[in-house]
């Protein structure tokens, strides 16, 4: 007796799909959840407790942050730059998984990019698309 047959995707599409999941997994390792005021996502910028997020997300001075390993800690807003919609949050931690930085200078329209966050409370959700255009 054989079980139900599963259609196998072509090797390239299979690898493409696996590649997407792998890249999202890697990107998600530095993803944090900001849970005060305006909820949102953030990224570990430096292993010694520096997190970046949007200025419109980081409202107030003391922020509840869920770290990539699931622990909840309090963070302090170190700086806000509303013009760029950026904020820096400090947490009393070391050894956090910092994000690997890419280079947006060489990007071309059509290149694949992924975005991660926690929409409607869905933890670690992702979307994939291409760079629409560059100014």
């Amino acid at each position, binding site marked *: 007796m054989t079980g139900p047959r599963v259609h196998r995707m072509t090797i*390239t599409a299979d690898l*493409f799909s696996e590649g997407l999941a792998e890249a999202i997994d890697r990107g998600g390792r530095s993803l944090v959840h900001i849970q005060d005021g305006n909820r949102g996502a953030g990224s570990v910028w430096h292993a010694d407790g520096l997190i970046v997020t949007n200025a419109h997300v980081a409202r107030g001075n003391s922020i509840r942050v869920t770290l990539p390993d699931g622990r909840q800690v309090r963070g302090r807003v170190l700086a806000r730059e509303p013009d760029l919609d950026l904020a820096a949050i400090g947490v009393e931690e070391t050894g956090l998984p910092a994000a690997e930085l890419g280079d947006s200078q060489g990007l071309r*329209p059509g290149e694949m990019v992924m975005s991660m966050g926690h929409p409607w409370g869905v933890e670690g959700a992702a979307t994939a698309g291409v*760079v629409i255009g560059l100014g």
Partner: protein
Amino acid sequence: MPDTLINVSNDLADTVAAADRGVLRVDGRHRVAATGVAWTADGVIVTASHVLERDDSIEVGLPDGESVTATLVGRDPTTDLAVLRVEGDGLAPLVRSDLDDTRVGNLVLALGRPGKTVMATLGIVSAIGDAWRTRAGGSIDRYLQPDVAMPPGFSGGPLVDSAGKLLGLTSSGLVRGIAVAVPVATLERVVETLLQHGHVRRGYLGVGAQIARLPDDLAKELDQETGLLIVSVASGSPAGKAGLVLGDSLVTLDGIPVRQLDDLLGALAGEAVGKTMDAKIVRGGALQQVAISIGDRPTGA
């Protein structure tokens, strides 16, 4: 990133770069400019009709940044297509593809140039179907629906496959709320007609009509529940000349049962102009036959 993903990503960016010169900015409205597709090297451009709010002072932005004035060759609002012409022979038309090798699930890119640079969104083919008729009565050879995002100004731009071949023209003006693409077969047909006649010739009766139930005995006899009740007849129109009057119900035209407006539009599409068609009408409860010489629908009618 893993190798395959990097390769796919680079391939997609290469595809966009290769198609770049075939994607043009079309500025014919007050809001953000829209997009057009280079159709022939010697200056023919296809775009969406609904993005042209005016018939003259249409500007086309070329990939090198130059802006030139285009003339409107013609438009067909029923398929939401328009043809423009610019001077010169420097356009880079895209390679066209019929949909024979395209399947649901294939990767596609929508391209646009509402500003100076080319833009792209990625998706898959969501649906491919048979021929369909737009709400305005236009005939589209295949139904082609991608799940690409359509940022403002993408209408009139190309939908290309992963090899950069033109599959169709995207329009967010044909079906409310979703992007559909007008396939190459329809583009070729409509562009040809517009270049020849300046408008798409569609048969014209000159009546206003609405669906009406037929009397039970006639419905049984014709095996047809409804016909079209004539509620207006334009003076001097083909219907007027044939003697149609208010209160008549049209039940067949050229042998085709007319149960609803779509059926009438279907009977009047194609090569109807100039033909004399037999029509069955119900007048005073009885069937009659009249011959109607089909006219050419006036522009804007």
